[in-house]
């Protein structure tokens, strides 16, 4: 009897461990392409670091199209146009959001250096675009004033 109980416990323990292992690996496999570290950074500097963006160069060739004053922080239309040749990726950072990095867009195969999205913003903040081109990082900033926050 006792022996049976032991084997049962052993087996169920093994099954649990196996299940946990499986869950973990599938979770990772899904999350791998998604830059978890950068998206979960709470400070702009950490997000930049996890994005791999260093030695940022201010650029006038990045145009951020956004309202000066957005009444509803839940829907803030932002468009970023990069005129820098060989633009590889465009990231958008809302500096005062709880998690500043909002999105990265990798451009390839004839995609133009242009993206347009709608962000949620908690409060008035700078919106920063980081553009990667030829391995270098360029940046531009625009302030958007928020009347009603859109987080929470």
């Amino acid at each position, binding site marked *: 009897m006792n022996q049976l109980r032991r084997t049962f416990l052993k087996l169920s323990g093994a099954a649990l461990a196996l299940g946990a292992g499986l869950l973990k690996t599938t979770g990772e496999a*899904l999350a791998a*392409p*998604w*830059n978890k570290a950068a*998206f979960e950074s709470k400070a702009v500097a950490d997000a930049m670091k996890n994005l791999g963006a260093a030695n940022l160069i201010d650029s006038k060739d990045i145009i951020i199209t956004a309202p000066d004053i957005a009444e509803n922080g*839940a*829907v*803030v*239309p932002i*468009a970023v146009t990069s005129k820098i040749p060989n633009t590889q990726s465009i990231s958008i950072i*809302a500096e005062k*959001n*709880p*998690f500043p*990095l*909002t*999105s*990265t*867009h*990798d*451009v*390839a*195969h*004839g*995609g*133009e250096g*242009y*993206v*347009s*999205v*709608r*962000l*949620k*913003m908690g409060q008035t903040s700078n919106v920063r675009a980081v553009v990667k081109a030829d391995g270098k990082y360029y940046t531009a900033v625009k302030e958007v004033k928020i009347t009603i926050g*859109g*987080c*929470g």
Partner: protein
Amino acid sequence: MAEPMKIRATLQGDVADVRILIQHPMETGQRKDAKGDIVPMHFIQSVVVTHNGNIVLDVQWSQAISRNPFLGLRVKGAKAGDKISVTWTDNKGDKRTDEVAVAAPS
């Protein structure tokens, strides 16, 4: 299953202007429901846009993108009738793919 996307691709010269509207709640994980319980995160993490099978835009999003997200992009060297296909995947593993043909300018 997820609602179909609205995708519009219109030719302007040799550039296709693509506009995508996705139906998705995009929960941030910070909002509380009427009972005061936190609504779990549920948001689109990845959107892949292809033009005739080549990836033109590979998007990673956080929960800071608005509900029912909009995505606009431009594709160089497109012709009328070219296929634009969009696939999104959210943090729960749900996904959906829709395809349209590039329309000639009207």
